[in-house]
């Protein structure tokens, strides 16, 4: 039986595609018009030649990497413990993890500045590293809804209770179980949470700006005010990066244990 062609759904699908791709195409087209009268990648080259761009990008990548590590170390043991021992509390924890979606990040950063300002008991904002720490903590909070969901779904897919008991009967401690059994088995989930965290942190403006960090988000906004073609080029590159991350996420999610995503010829021969 061949599915019948339906006009209604087809129109809706087409409209959705246009809605998404037309502005994207327009931006792409625009980004190529920096040189008058010809299409070129001059805007892209201009972006990369800007030393501020590179510094901002590197800073944001480091900050989001730190946020990913902190976030995973916070969320994985928490989600594990809640699923294993406090299943009744799961809705509560889930609700708390969703709060960053409800409370604007401006509120969060003002709270941070009040709590850890120059006249507080712990004046983190007075030092560079302290402010960076606040930024990373802010990123961890912002990414909590995505990280928690990803990790919690990952745990739903394996029988953590029985695996825990099996490992315990073999003499393993709780910490060992989390790091050698639970973490590796939800790796795909952690990785997808990590990619989501990364894409959020990279574009984040409010916290970075109010903490006066020269991160990528504020840079983009500044660029948007100062220039015409470069922001379009930057937007297209962000899209490309996001899609790449999505593809990697998919690849990690469907990977079987023992498989490598890339065959590293340099890596020493894995144990038989």
């Amino acid at each position, binding site marked *: 039986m061949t599915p019948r062609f339906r006009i209604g759904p087809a129109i809706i699908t087409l409209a959705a595609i246009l809605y998404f791709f037309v502005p994207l195409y327009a931006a792409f087209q625009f980004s190529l018009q920096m040189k008058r009268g010809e299409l070129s990648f001059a805007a892209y080259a201009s972006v990369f030649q800007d030393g501020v761009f590179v510094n901002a990008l590197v800073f944001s990548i480091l900050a989001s990497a730190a946020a990913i590590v902190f976030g995973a170390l916070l969320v994985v043991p928490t989600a594990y413990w809640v699923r294993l021992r406090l299943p009744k509390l799961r809705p509560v924890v889930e609700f708390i993890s969703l709060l960053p979606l409800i409370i604007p990040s401006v509120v969060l950063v003002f709270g941070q500045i009040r709590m850890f300002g120059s006249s507080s008991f712990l004046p983190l904002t007075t030092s560079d590293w302290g402010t960076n720490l606040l930024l990373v903590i802010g990123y961890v909070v912002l990414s909590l809804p995505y990280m928690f969901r990803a990790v919690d779904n990952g745990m739903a897919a394996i029988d953590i209770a029985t695996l825990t008991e*099996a490992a315990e*009967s073999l*003499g393993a401690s709780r910490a060992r179980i989390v790091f050698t059994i639970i973490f590796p088995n939800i790796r795909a989930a952690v990785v997808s949470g990590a990619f989501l965290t990364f894409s959020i942190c990279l574009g984040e403006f409010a916290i970075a700006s109010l903490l006066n960090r020269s991160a990528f988000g504020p840079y983009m906004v500044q660029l948007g005010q100062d220039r015409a073609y470069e922001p379009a080029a930057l937007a297209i590159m962000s899209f490309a990066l996001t899609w790449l991350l999505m593809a990697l996420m998919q690849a990690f999610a469907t990977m079987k244990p023992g498989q490598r995503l890339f065959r590293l010829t340099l890596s020493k021969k894995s144990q038989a």
Partner: protein
Amino acid sequence: MSLLTLRTLQKSFGATTVVKNFDLTMGNAEFISLLGPSGCGKTTVLRMVAGFETPSVGAIEIDGQDVTALRPNQRKIGMMFQSYALFPNLNVAGNVAFGLKVSGVPSGEITRRVDEMLAMVGLTGFGARYPYQLSGGQQQRVALARAIAPRPRVLLLDEPLSALDAKIRVALRGEIRAIQRELGITTLFVTHDQEEAMAMSDRVVVMNGGRAEQVGTPDQIYNRPASRFVAEFIGALNLLPATLRDAASGVVDTALGTLTLNRVVPQSNGAALTLAFRPESLRLLPEGSPDAGQTFTGRLVTREFLGAIVRFRAEIAGGVTLGIDCFNRTGEVLPDVGQEVRLGILPQEILVLQ
């Protein structure tokens, strides 16, 4: 000397007590099965021994050491689960090595021991495979190798064969028993399958409603059930209400007439009893053969062919229906449905239940 001792264990979840007054002493290298219907508390007893549940009352001793307060990872036990519970991120060798690594065995020794264990469960050469690349039976063999690799003091198995095909189940239970004998590991095995329990165990604990109804060898459990529950739970049984006429010589009145058990029945005359006997205790007596024991005549109403056994049901006088099992021997002509038959049973094969 006793290796595992359970002293008056009791376990309550909220208001419901699921294990009551449970006592058991296991000798070194003994294989004991906990057998009973689903929900009778078998798993709960096993989990208390493993340390996953804390007894509400009672104590657990392993090798003379009170382990009641120890955490599961301090008890030096091995465990197998119905769902295999292999670590999906580790290959077969990694799974078997897990317990050895945890206890800090040097890596050369680990490799040697993993190979030895894999050979023992018939999986030599499977070390580099991952659990998802193995069949259920192979996964459970790996789980066995993993459990015994660190030389546990007690091996605990919770229905490890229930998820497997019938053929593999029978093969694997033989292997588990053989390995258990070879290594001399004290083993507590949970099952709801009486055939499994009978086939594997030194002793069987029949459980009902959180209590041990009877502890005994398979032979004792089957042939001398201590309670009506055990008699009815294990194997098939014909039940016959009776009234005791003479306790001293065991004369009883039944719907089949008066039967003589030729032994003292420890009840007072006039007491209501239930007589019980196995379908295989009833014999179809050929035409003209002399009477042996008690005999009655009946008419066959159903005939079920079960392979090694043919199972009949016969209507006897007074509305009683009895099950009869006959061996299906080559060349033997068994009667058909509708035929009149003569049945015989020896008095010593009739159990008296209260």
